[in-house]
């Protein structure tokens, strides 16, 4: 394992968990089965005589189902069931509009589930679905997000329990008296997570026992969350719902919570007790039913004195949510403490539209919010005649501007300096000054940030199996993040064992409760629970336990965490080349330097950072769900038309990190790494495109048509 250079050391406190395994670039333990395709994802689990479910989706954006003719489908050989609101079992809890499936004829967005066909083969199920005739009373709909929508409202709070608005200091006065003011609008489009593995389940309803039970193989970032939701919605006891999810083909937030299809497959299974029912959303269906990132309309105003010191900062966002369930993304929260500004105001306003339910997508809030803020910072640097790196250094706050708390470890300035050096930032030329043949060349920079999150409630179990082998159980998930490997490393060191003596099991509600693999909190939450369970195990059972000795524990209390403002930081540098004739953009080089606390596994961590940066590149140049508002749905609902980067779009990504341990947040010293890589990247690309061409593209994505002249 070689790092891309030798990162400098800062804050090298040594935590209790350091051992031979943690910190080592161990090869991915699940790599071997994955490269052969032998890791069984949800839809591939063995199931005897399975039935296949194909969805029926509404073809109007608002209205009600007026008539269902399923006779042709029901007559088709192999069709087992046509389920619609007319014959669906009733749900026990209908408080969540997304999960209230087939309980009424109402249609709240185009593509909503209005039924399904279950058959003995996938071909027959799909054919059957084509034969069901559904008529609608269509009502007028509105799917267009507008800054001047009179129905915009302020939600009670925004995602992750942040206040909707903040207002600190006399910001208007600060802006009026500033030597330099940037006042610009930025927008980010609707985007879809699109993990490679479609959302899939196999559900079996068993009535052979005293009480009915439901078993679901699901592709999820949180098996326990799926089980508790299904139990509540279906009226089952939580212990009668088991969710199993050993391997997950990517999630990026879209598998963080169950979606309507999970309820649907359970309803179908309930109607066909004893028979496993298989459902995989088609790629097209994923654009309606698996969550997405809201479009954002942002306005950023920054005032600064002649030296570039920020005096006032206003960041306002307008976003959409669905009519059946509110999701309020925390877009402007980043501006509350990213830079030192004496006066700050942030706000979020929502439009409830006839659209599918938005949800988490990698770094919800930080990804679009840091685009707006960091692009504005680039414009401020230009307006002040300052180097954009220097502008950020000048505005680095000594303590959290919002709470006044000390930073648990803020090393943005180091990241910027190290990154500038690694990238060769000093070779950046004035706007529009560099050309290489037909290519216009530009450099750009932006900061990254993501909060250090720990979620309470996870429990780990350690059990000695005899002959030197230990089982470590926790219902966590590995969605490509490397948890299978990194959690094993933590357990091995905590027990004082070689890694191959530790047998980790995750991805099953039969294992102790774990919080969702989201918010970059997996290692801090699940790793800390494992650490404490291992510590207690040794305390209770010593170094020579009896076979069968077992200890279960949640993470240790860590009250110190409340006393600090805990955030990760990073700096990203980008070189772009813009074709002078066609406006095509290429990104030959990216450099990212991050400060995220301790890195448990450098090999898998580097992949996480790189993957995040690829997402940022993708956000900058490609991703855009294109809605036709007359119909109210995304038209480019496949992977030919919804562009994500191909191999040819990603060239050289240099990743490094500061050698650091942050023991203020948790005893492992980690702050999480899964999401920070996507934050700021798009602003760095926009900055580089401006440096190359002189053109400011403020509305993402930066496609060739925005640059061709």
């Amino acid at each position, binding site marked *: 394992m070689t790092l891309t250079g030798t990162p400098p050391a800062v804050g090298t406190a040594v935590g209790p968990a350091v051992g031979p395994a943690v910190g080592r670039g161990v090869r991915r333990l699940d790599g071997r089965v994955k490269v052969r395709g032998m890791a069984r994802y949800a839809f591939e689990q063995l199931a005897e005589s399975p039935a296949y479910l194909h969805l029926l989706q509404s073809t109007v954006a608002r209205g009600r189902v007026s008539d269902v003719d399923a006779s042709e489908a029901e007559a088709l050989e192999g069709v087992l069931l046509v389920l619609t609101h007319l014959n669906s079992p009733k749900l026990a809890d209908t408080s969540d509009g997304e999960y209230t499936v087939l309980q009424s004829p109402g249609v709240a967005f185009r593509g909503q589930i209005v039924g399904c066909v279950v058959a003995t083969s996938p*071909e027959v199920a799909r054919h059957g679905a084509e034969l069901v005739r559904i008529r609608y009373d269509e009502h007028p709909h509105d799917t267009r997000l507008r800054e001047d929508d009179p129905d915009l409202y302020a939600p009670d709070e925004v995602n992750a329990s942040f206040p909707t608005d903040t207002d600190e200091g006399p910001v208007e006065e600060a802006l009026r008296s500033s030597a330099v003011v940037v006042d610009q609008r930025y927008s980010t489009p609707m985007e879809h997570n699109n993990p490679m593995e479609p959302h899939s389940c196999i559900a079996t309803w068993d009535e052979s026992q005293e009480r009915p039970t439901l078993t679901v193989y699901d592709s999820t970032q949180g098996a326990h969350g799926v089980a508790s939701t299904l139990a509540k919605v279906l009226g089952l006891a939580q212990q009668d719902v088991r969710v199993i999810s050993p391997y997950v083909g990517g999630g990026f937030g879209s598998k963080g919570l169950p979606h309507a299809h999970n309820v649907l497959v359970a309803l179908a299974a309930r109607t066909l007790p004893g028979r496993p029912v298989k459902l995989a959303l088609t790629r097209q269906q994923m654009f309606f039913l698996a969550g997405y990132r809201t479009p954002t309309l942002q306005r950023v105003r920054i005032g600064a004195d002649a030296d570039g010191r920020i005096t006032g900062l206003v960041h306002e966002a307008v976003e959409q949510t669905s009519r059946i369930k509110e999701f309020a993304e925390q877009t402007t929260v980043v501006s509350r403490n990213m830079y030192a500004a004496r006066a700050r105001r942030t706000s979020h306003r929502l439009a409830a539209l006839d659209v599918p339910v938005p949800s988490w997508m990698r770094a919800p809030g930080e990804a679009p919010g840091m685009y707006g803020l960091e692009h504005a910072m680039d414009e401020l640097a230009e307006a002040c005649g300052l180097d954009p790196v220097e502008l950020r250094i000048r505005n680095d706050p000594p303590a959290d501007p919002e709470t006044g708390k000390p930073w648990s470890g803020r090393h943005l300035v180091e990241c910027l300096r190290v990154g500038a050096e690694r990238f060769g930032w000093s070779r950046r030329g004035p706007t529009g000054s560099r050309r290489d043949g037909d290519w216009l060349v530009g450099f750009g920079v932006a900061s990254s940030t993501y909060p250090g999150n720990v979620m309470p409630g996870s429990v780990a179990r350690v059990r000695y199996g005899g002959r030197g082998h230990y089982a470590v159980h926790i219902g966590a998930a590995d969605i490509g993040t490397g948890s299978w490997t990194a959690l094993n490393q933590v357990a091995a060191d905590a027990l004082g064992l070689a890694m191959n003596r530790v047998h980790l099991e995750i991805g099953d509600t039969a294992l102790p409760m774990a919080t969702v693999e989201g918010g970059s909190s997996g290692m801090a939450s699940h790793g800390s629970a494992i650490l404490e369970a291992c510590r207690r195990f040794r305390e209770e059972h010593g170094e020579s336990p009896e076979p069968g000795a077992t200890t279960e524990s949640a993470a240790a209390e860590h009250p110190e965490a409340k006393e600090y403002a805990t955030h990760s930081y990073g700096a990203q540098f980008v070189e772009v080349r813009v074709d002078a004739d066609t406006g095509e953009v290429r990104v030959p080089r990216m450099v990212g330097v991050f400060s995220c606390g301790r890195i448990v596994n450098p090999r898998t961590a580097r992949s996480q950072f790189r993957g995040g940066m690829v997402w940022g590149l993708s956000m900058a*140049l490609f991703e855009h769900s*294109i809605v036709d508002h007359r119909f109210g749905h995304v038209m480019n609902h496949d992977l030919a*038309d919804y562009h994500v980067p191909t191999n*040819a779009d990603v060239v050289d990504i240099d990743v490094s990190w500061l050698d650091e341990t942050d023991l203020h947040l948790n005893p492992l010293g980690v702050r999480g790494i899964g999401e920070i890589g996507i934050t700021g990247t798009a602003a760095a690309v926009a900055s580089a495109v401006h440096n190359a061409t002189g053109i400011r593209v403020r509305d993402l994505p930066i496609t*060739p048509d925005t640059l061709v002249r």
Partner: protein
Amino acid sequence: MRPFTYERALDPADAVARVAAHPDAAYLGGGTNLVDHLRLGVAAPGRLVDVSRLALDRVESRDDGGLRIGAAVRNSDLAAHPSVRHDFPVLSQALLAGASGQIRNMATTAGNLLQRTRCRYFQDVTTPCNKREPGSGCPAVEGRNRTLAILGASEHCVATHPSDMAVALAALDADVVVLGPSGERRIPMADLHRLPGDEPARDTTLDPGELITAVELAPLPAARRSAYRKVRDRASYAFALVSVAAVLEVEDGVVREVRIALGGVAHKPWRATRAEEALRGREATAEGFRAAAEAELGAARPLSENAFKVPMARNAITATLRGLVRAAGERA
């Protein structure tokens, strides 16, 4: 996806007989477009006649120095063929600019020509489309039309033809050899694909049951200096926003031979005859190239979201011709 029967044709005549006898029969070649359409519900034949294993999989040199390309030759094999690479580099490049390595291994010459539009409304059976369902309307005209036509469209359809290969073949004046119930005929590339007019459902001038058996290229020495330029939203594996196939022969600074065809701008590969006329016999200068491109694009009627295609096509034409001049200079 309605059930269909499957049969494998024994030879081209047998294939034609099997399909001509059944109005709901379709030919199955590489399957890369048809299987996609079966699953989308865009196509619903009752009978598939597999022509992918017919002995139409060879590239043969003609006595006159031209090429005869079997209809079942895979795109990757055609792109790699030594004669194609040497004598018609524009064709090799166009093929390699299309799709992905896997798809090029599957897709056939005839199937590539007969690809249907990637217009989103055509592919989404929950929306109207005159091409898919004649008379239902064209939502693209006033809808999401960024990728659609700027030339030769009608109020009934603004779709573009998605093939790269066909653009190169149009520039090379290829002939398409077709076998039908009443025998064989040859169709010049310029006449194979149609403009939509008031019959957008018809992509080509093929009659029902007709089977493409080969594509023929007459010798064109100038084509050794030819190139394909594809402008797209990402670096690979994306359809063209605009593409240019060009052949250019310059002698003493004067354009002796020029062929230009455009992709991504019309319902068919768009032969830029006005630009060619403006260039032939004139000095080969960047200004001249630009003026010629503008002459061609004067006829453009952009839609609400695709006006950018006009400067993009102009610049792509200019840059492609410039590149050919430069390459000629380097090799001279």
